[in-house]
């Protein structure tokens, strides 16, 4: 049984980690906690659904089109809303992302909200890949793990081994200095939003078959993903991934051994405890703010 628990923890954990990564990339670049992340992912998932079921595209084409859409959505969000803020402060940005979240939620509800849909992927939740006496590994589990891993590797490669990644990291460290060195900081921030939106969209596509496809489907994963990001400190990407996996593990173990009823809120208890001890997450470098 413990193996089965570990597998499901890894699967939920890696989905949390993807959402947490999406939020952390943006947070590192701009100090904005993007609450619209979940709804952006939800809309992208709906786009996949429409492409698959209404237009009958093959899965890969639909996926590529969706990711392009997600990228554009992220860039547009940054260009049309975030960049236009007059006197930007943290609260203002939070309100803008919350407003965008409500906007997307309303639009999706208006267009698709009236009935629930089942979302099927080429790798289904019911097809079993490996079955032993102690655990069952479904296609969806395996695919989620592999996809999450691949996305993390790709992100690592982009950030550490390309020119774009170098520019992104420069902007994260010091926007002013990056601009002096000829990096178009605004454009880089836009691209960061786009990439983050793609990562979120993939998480959304992985979440949709587990839950049903409806406009509220990303609420819980988003909050958990955000919690995971905070747990591992928003500023360290490996920390964020570990935070996500840890949160998945804690949740599943708690749900199995202690109480299934309070499974959904144990994450916050843990977060509060950890933040009491380490106020900027588990993997934060300690720094002293100046006045």
């Amino acid at each position, binding site marked *: 049984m413990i193996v089965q628990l570990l597998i499901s923890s890894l699967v939920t954990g890696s989905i949390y980690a993807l959402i947490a990564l999406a939020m952390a990339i943006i947070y590192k670049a701009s100090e904005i906690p993007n609450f619209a992340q979940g709804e952006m992912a939800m809309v992208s998932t709906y786009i996949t659904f429409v492409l698959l079921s209404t237009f009958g595209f093959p899965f890969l084409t639909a996926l590529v089109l969706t990711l392009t859409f997600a990228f554009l959505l992220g860039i547009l969000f940054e260009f049309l809303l975030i960049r236009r803020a007059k006197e930007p402060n943290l*609260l203002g940005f*939070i309100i*803008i992302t919350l*407003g965008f979240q409500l906007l997307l939620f*309303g639009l999706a509800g208006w267009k698709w909200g009236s009935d629930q849909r089942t979302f099927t992927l080429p790798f289904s939740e019911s097809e079993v890949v490996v079955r032993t006496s102690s655990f069952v590994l479904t296609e969806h589990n395996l695919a989620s793990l592999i996809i999450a891993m691949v996305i993390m590797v790709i992100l690592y490669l982009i950030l550490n081994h390309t020119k774009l990644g170098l520019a992104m990291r420069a902007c994260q460290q010091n926007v002013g200095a990056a601009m002096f060195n000829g990096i178009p900081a605004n454009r880089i921030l836009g691209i960061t939003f786009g990439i983050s939106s793609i990562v979120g969209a993939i998480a959304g596509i992985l979440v949709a078959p587990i839950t049903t496809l409806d406009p509220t489907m990303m609420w819980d994963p988003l909050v958990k993903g955000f919690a995971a*990001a905070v747990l591992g400190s928003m500023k360290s990407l490996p920390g964020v991934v570990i935070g996500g996996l840890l949160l998945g593990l804690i949740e599943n173990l708690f749900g199995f051994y202690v109480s299934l009823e*309070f499974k959904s809120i144990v994450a916050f*208890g843990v977060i509060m405890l950890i933040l009491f001890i380490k*106020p900027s997450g588990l993997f934060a470098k300690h720094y002293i703010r100046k006045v």
Partner: protein
Amino acid sequence: MRLKRVYFEDIRLFKTTASLVWTLLFLLLLFLVPFIFKTYYLSVVNLMCLNVIVALGLNILVGNTGQISLGHAGFVAIGAYTAAILLQAGVPFVFTLIIAGLVSCLVGAFLGLPSLRLEGPYLAIVTLGFGLAVMVIIGRMEMFGGRMGLMIPRIDLNWSGLSYDRTLYYVFIIITILMTILAHNIIHSKIGRAFQAIRDSDIAASVTGINLVHYKTLSFAVSAFFAGIGGALWALYLQFVTPGTFSLMMSVLFLATVVLGGLGSVTGSVLGGIVMTLLNLQLEKVVTVPLFGDLIVFLSDTIMNPSGIANIRWVLTGLILILIILYEPHGLNGIWLRIKRYWNLWPF
């Protein structure tokens, strides 16, 4: 320009005779409302009162102290459920109200403790988690009626000699006025100044001798007190509480109210509470608005889906939030101040 020479001139309630006169006229109007309007409008005003009270508290926390709370519905829920249980047990209303406020206040002080070391997204996730946790815990406990919620008995208002609705209206209005004065006094007192110093820079504030532990916790406690009172009135207004009412969406809408009204001002909270209530009520029947409603219906039939048209209120609320931040960061209070300045010097 009127210069202030002594501290007393800055903290008093009415700065000029004119504002005193206008306030008295406004109070007279509020007094006359039940005799002019139908009962339905009384309940609209009551709803406004609730939102105004919660907004006043949230504004002290967000606008004046600069802390973020995404879980204010949790405090409202605590106030509402405390009031529900006490009223069912037959405790007099006045005590119920005060106890509901104090219970919420205590929880607020407790939640305020981690805020001493947290900021930005870290504080946001703690408060967000708090709001969700309160909802789940209340929903699972038998004592609070589980998912079915609790019914609340009508309170005894026969002493006034007026009908129940009218008396309830006066009760709500009087409590709201008291809470507004309380918020005004807190903001303009030593405590409020300490809050604002913390908002502008907490390190600088602590250097000037402001006890951060004390004032940050106090800010959460005061804010939760307002929310608790608001929650008690909420229970009285709906006569029925379920955990589903106090969702994450409610917290977001409270934050929206404060931002719409204008951060850090009492006038802003009041305006925000009034306008947000009206908006919420009107957005439900947006289809009946002359030109805009037709456009919405047309869009629904062609591109969107007619059966999901109720969701248009979220679209518009989201748009309003974004537009306020982009084009009017001081909210309705900013617009109000500009209008006032214009008419101050009007013919010239």
